[in-house]
């Protein structure tokens, strides 16, 4: 693009001073080549404007939830990185610069790195990522939990159901407390895709189980697809899922 064309681009953007703009107006009456360029510019601009489209309903809620979960994850990791006071006194120097950085890295990995992985590594599907992010952050687990069989076996719902869309999949997420464990149950009308490293499991449809960032995941597929995520050993999750009121 030569200087003439560059000046034409500035003229079309309406950014020339009035005197220069008048010169261009006069020039365009005489120069077929420039007039053709103006018309092509207008055609392209008009066509591109056809593509304007508002964000789909629900996207703002989804973004709000994702940021809320990222914030909770960051807060939880800061708390986890803070050992009890008596331990801090003896190990303060070791924690400095290591625990904080590690927790931040873990939080960043959970919040940011799950669906955009480095080259060569398959990505965890967005729908599974969303559920895992939620389970990581809400509720806040204190390390890996385990079923306490002596505790009440009636599941109690924690908080209210949340709806999120990820990977084009509408998902309803609920949190349940049962036997000392808090588990997230996500239900969708479409099957949750298997993440890398998942294994086929016993259960409805193409059931699968996987481990992801300290969570055990168990998915079963019937009329709907249900994904259970909890910070428990993998061997316990199927039994836990069987006791939850899913679908």
């Amino acid at each position, binding site marked *: 693009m030569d200087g003439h064309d560059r000046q034409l681009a*500035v003229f079309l953007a309406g950014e020339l001073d009035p005197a220069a703009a008048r010169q261009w107006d006069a020039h365009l009456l005489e120069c077929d080549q420039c007039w053709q360029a103006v018309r092509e510019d207008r055609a*392209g601009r008009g*066509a591109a404007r*056809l*593509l304007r489209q508002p964000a*789909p309903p629900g996207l703002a809620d989804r973004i709000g939830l994702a*940021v809320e979960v990222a914030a909770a994850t960051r807060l939880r990791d800061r708390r986890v990185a803070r050992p009890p006071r008596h331990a801090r006194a003896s190990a303060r120097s070791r924690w400095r610069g290591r625990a904080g950085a590690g927790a931040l890295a873990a939080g960043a990995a959970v919040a940011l790195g799950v669906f955009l992985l480095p080259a060569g590594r398959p990505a965890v599907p967005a729908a599974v990522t969303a559920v895992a992010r939620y389970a990581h952050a809400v509720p806040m687990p204190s390390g890996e939990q385990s079923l306490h069989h002596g505790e009440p076996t009636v599941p109690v719902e924690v908080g209210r159901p949340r709806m999120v869309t990820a990977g084009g999949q509408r998902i309803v997420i609920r949190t349940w407390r049962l036997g000392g464990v808090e588990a997230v149950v996500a239900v969708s009308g479409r099957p949750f895709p298997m993440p890398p490293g998942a294994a086929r499991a016993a259960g409805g449809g193409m059931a699968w189980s996987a481990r992801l960032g300290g969570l055990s995941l168990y998915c079963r597929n019937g009329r709907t697809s249900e994904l259970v995520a909890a910070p428990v050993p993998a061997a316990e999750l199927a039994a836990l899922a069987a006791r939850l009121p899913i679908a």
Partner: protein
Amino acid sequence: MGGDHRAFLDATLPHLDLVYQVARHVAGDGLEPEDLVQETYLRAYAGFGSFRGGNARAWLAAICLNVARSEARRRRRRPSEVPARALLDVLPLAGERNGEAAPDVADVVIAGLDAREVSRCLALLPEPQRVCVVLVDVAGYSAREAAEALGCPRGTVLARVHRGRRRLAGLLAESGVSHGRP
């Protein structure tokens, strides 16, 4: 901390439509625009502490473009470039030749093409032109904001927008002919 993410959302959610416009046209195959928007917001939130109250619209656009580029590199997929034909070689504007009022070229092109076709042709533009057309014409950023998001001079943005529009018009004209439309 609790107010941290609320402050972030207050500052950035009003620009969701703009970010979505950009994401729709820079997300490569296999990447949903909604996912790209979400990742943009999560990265922006992670960097919100270092954001010093500049132009949030341009800041979000820059992040969105960076995420899309990273993902495109990861997928090693590049858009192909198709040579454009001059619009007026294709569109017969008989009225003009007879000295009568000629139909507006934009109207002629737009009348014969739907948004899906425009989107397909837009995707064929070389990336620098496509990104500038998306930012300025589709999303409605000013040239100054687009320049800030892209880290290049405003004159470069104007030149790329101009070239991109002309090439887009040419591609659409070709498309109209190939589909038997005037």
